[in-house]
């Protein structure tokens, strides 16, 4: 009897965890708690991914050309044990994917409010973080960033921006 009950519990748990559970926790909450509902659809299909670029200038100079904001980590033998650079790069990519997802869900007329959203502010913090690595000294700089959709494996020239920030000074 107990064997059957335990077996049934595990089958139910397995079905629960592999089923679509979005009805349990609405929208945002589901996104935050998604680690409790495993998804094993790895490398399913080539898709468009967000691609972040920035340009900047010192003082009164005109803004430079667009350049990739995220640097590629270098391959190291020790990466099997500890690979913080790559895991950071993956987390940054995930941040941009969330930004893209949030933009796609925007209601018409709410675009201007988006700059106050956590996704936009985190993306801006990511740009500022990268800018700190690029610039030297403490003199003020102006900067702008844009995010485009890039098909995985395609050339950067083919991408089209879906978000262009205003020029800011820091």
């Amino acid at each position, binding site marked *: 009897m*107990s*064997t059957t009950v*335990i*077996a049934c*519990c*595990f089958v139910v*748990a*397995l079905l629960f*965890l*592999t089923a679509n559970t979005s009805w349990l926790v609405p929208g*945002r*909450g589901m*996104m*935050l*708690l*998604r*680690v*409790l509902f*495993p*998804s*094993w*659809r*790895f*490398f*399913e*299909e*080539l898709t468009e*991914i967000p691609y972040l670029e920035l340009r900047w200038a010192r003082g009164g100079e005109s803004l430079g050309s667009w350049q990739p904001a995220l640097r*590629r*980590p*270098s*391959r190291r033998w020790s*990466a*099997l*044990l*500890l*690979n*913080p650079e*790559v*895991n*950071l*790069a*993956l*987390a*940054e990519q*995930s*941040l941009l994917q*969330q930004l893209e997802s949030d933009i796609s869900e925007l209601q018409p007329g709410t675009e201007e409010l988006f700059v106050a959203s*956590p996704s936009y*502010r*985190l993306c801006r*913090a*990511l740009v500022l*973080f990268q800018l700190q690595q690029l610039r030297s000294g403490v003199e003020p700089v102006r900067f702008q960033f844009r995010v485009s959709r890039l098909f*995985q*494996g395609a050339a950067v020239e083919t991408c089209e921006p879906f978000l262009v920030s205003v020029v800011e000074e820091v």
Partner: protein
Amino acid sequence: MPWSLSPLLLTEKLIALAVMLQTVELLQLRHTFADDGIWQWRLLKPEYEIFPAPIPRLLDALLRYRAFLVVLGLRLLAAVAMLAFSQITLTAILLCSTVLICLRWRGTFNGGSDYMTIVVLSSLLVAQLFDRSPMVTLGCLWYIALQSCLSYFIAGVVKLRRASWRTGRALPGFLAAGVYGRGGFERVLITRPILTLLLSWFILLFECLFPLAFLHQSLCAAFIGCAALFHLANVAVFGLNRFFFVWVSTYPALLFCSQLGVGYAVL
């Protein structure tokens, strides 16, 4: 119940090693979630206000920079201690801190490896809660083994449905889009379509046939050997080191369940 304790103990030590390495990595990245980093708590905090009243306050106390460093420090100590001792408190600390890390990164920090860490730690916790019941221990081992098997099988089936995988076009795209870019290793593969086609079909067959591992222990050992090599290749090409250690921690359960055979599972 020495027959069931041993694989669970091995799982415990392997997941402790995986969590220890994950935590050292996060501590190395602490400047990225500091108050002037990328994932600043003041920017993230409004997202958690959708939860009922006490939860945002609790998260605010645990996830702000200094407090979160303490959480990570505690997690590291618990993981090191778990390498030597078996204690339900240690497992509970690892599980809760993993959930907190995922919340701090708005869902997950490292996707699939976080999912599997939760699967293994929650099963260990249930097994330790009911340590007098061999059936619960067995159920937990089966749960880990089935989730590990499903992770390969589902990933294989969803790929098999895609023409780009069947024709070998998907793999070069993923290689080119990897974090390391089109380095020497990737270029060698990308410029050889026959090789990428063969590799694609090897991956498809390996993943889709993984449930056969439950038929016999020696077959399971062969699948586990291939899986370990597959994960090592993923470390080399995509830098996915976390997946290697977390998935290795599920292999004792897989081997144990394959020894019992499929017939035992449906008893």
